């Protein structure tokens, strides 16, 4: 599974980004460990410096730490991820099925923040008639990790469609409210992100005392930071 995953990734790498994502997903299933180049160790007390022993060994010039970091950042998948992020998906961040546009900030090397706005549509069926409704949302996506990340998505938007059956007639309306999702994301070296998340959604507006206010929301999305 693991070897096959790598082989697939290698074979398809030249066929374009989308297929590269598929290959990455296979790798994720195979739980391939992220290969990192070893970072030169700091000298410790157990490793006495040359001048303390008196031996005239050629001193190795160790680059300063900040230079190491720059080198790390230049490695594929670890370079600065700041930029506009375009995402397509299904879930409350998209008002149904749709797109979102955000800007991703690299707060730290491990923590990324991405405020965004999203819009899309959802199919609504009432009284044997189906129609498409638009939806919108705004949110903040926080991701923690390198390639495998934990994501926290806090959204305010059109969370659900409320139904009220009155004399057999189904009345519908959009409801709005906050949603908090937690989930997993995988980020490729080219800043493609595939993520899935689950969490509670609260129907706040319009307020209906006799409707359930809480529901479980799910989200699937694929995006890229440019």
């Amino acid at each position, binding site marked *: 599974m693991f070897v096959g995953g790598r082989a697939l990734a290698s074979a398809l790498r030249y066929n374009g980004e989308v297929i590269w994502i598929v290959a990455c997903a296979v790798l994720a299933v195979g739980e391939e460990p992220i290969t990192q180049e070893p970072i030169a160790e700091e000298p410790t007390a157990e490793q006495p410096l040359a001048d303390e022993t008196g031996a005239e060994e050629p001193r190795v010039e160790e680059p300063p730490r900040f230079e190491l970091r720059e080198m790390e950042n230049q490695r594929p998948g670890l370079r600065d991820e700041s930029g506009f992020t375009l995402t397509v998906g299904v879930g409350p961040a998209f008002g149904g099925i749709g797109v979102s546009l955000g800007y991703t900030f690299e707060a730290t090397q491990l923590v990324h923040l991405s405020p965004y706005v999203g819009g899309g549509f959802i199919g609504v069926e009432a*009284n044997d008639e189906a129609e498409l409704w638009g939806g919108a949302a705004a949110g903040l996506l926080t991701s923690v990790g390198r390639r495998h990340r934990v994501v926290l998505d806090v959204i305010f938007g059109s969370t659900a469609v409320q139904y*009220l059956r*009155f*004399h*057999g*007639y189904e*009345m519908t*309306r959009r409801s709005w409210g906050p949603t908090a999702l937690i989930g997993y994301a995988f980020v490729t070296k080219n800043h493609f992100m595939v993520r899935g998340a689950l969490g509670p959604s609260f129907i*706040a*507006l*319009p*307020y*209906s*005392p*006799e*409707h359930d206010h809480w529901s479980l929301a799910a989200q699937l999305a694929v995006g890229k930071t440019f």
Partner: protein
Amino acid sequence: MKRAPAFALLFLAGCGDRLFAPCDIRTARCQESLTNGLRQLRNESAIAPSVMVRSEEEVVADSIDSTTPAERESFARQNTILSLLGLSQPGLSLDAQVQNRFDRVAAFYSSSTDAITVIDRGQALDGVGPALTFTHELVHAMQGAEGLLALASQDVDTTDEGLAHRAITEGEATFYEDLAGFDLFGWDDDEHEKALAYYRDSTAYYAVFEDLLIYNASILFPYAFGAAYVRRIWEQGGQPAVVATYDALPSTTFGVIDGEEPSALLGADAIAVPTADYTVAIADRFGAFIVRAWCSRQDFIGCEDIQDDGFTGLVSADGTSSIAIWRMRVRPPNADFLLQRARDAGFNVSLVGDDLIFVASNTGSRVDYTTLVTGWRSNDD
């Protein structure tokens, strides 16, 4: 810190002030709360009806106990006649009909005792449904206090007129129950008219399949068609206009359904005057809701063109022969078309002018109505 109040305002913006809230309708506090909510919607009628929660068995038993043997005999005789044309089922007893009626009733108001009776079927009495049902009955209590129920129940000569009058009393109660429902659910009433149109259409549709149409019309028509009728009046002039309707109640279901009274009434041709061998057991007008539902049930086309009807039930002197004669005035030129469909369906039907005359008997042979009828008269006589 400044954002917190703003967010709270945003959150509460949809809450608004609610007039109604679900509560246990057995408690005095809940009854008072619902009454106060209704007063703000309707008017300031001071009411304090007593409230009883009783089992269906108790209510049915009371109702049956209040009937007399003569009423049971009359019911059986009339039911036999009505069954001849499929308006009821043969052999239905008055007791069974009482049970059938209460099967579909959640609560009722009695103006004679000024009491609301909620039928206990083991359901919770503290939810949205009971609160709305109770609100509906509170409207009847207000109508009773204002003398409107008395106005609606006087001078009722036909089944049709009774249905038309009940369309106002039940329509008003259903209308305010609906407004309470919108308030309770926190939902705008901008689709209420659509909901009522759907209610009317679905009620008319399901009426076609009613085996006991003649009886169940009273628990179908007034609510669905009355609510839409009252809403139209209320939109024009509010509650004062609704109250004013009781001084000029619609006299036919044709008027309630079509919005205007029919122009081509049977008048003096409604009820058959039989020969001396027969007595009249039923002289009635059933009206648009019943006659059109019956017509649709026969799979006829053009039922909307029936403008008026007169039903005569005859019983022979020895009581063995029952005859039903149903005269329907049809908007020209569709009488011929309906006649052909009715004959194809096996009905014994004649055409006189623009009127169809259906005849059915329990003698097993086709009866020529002209041998039974010596003339016609108005159903107001």
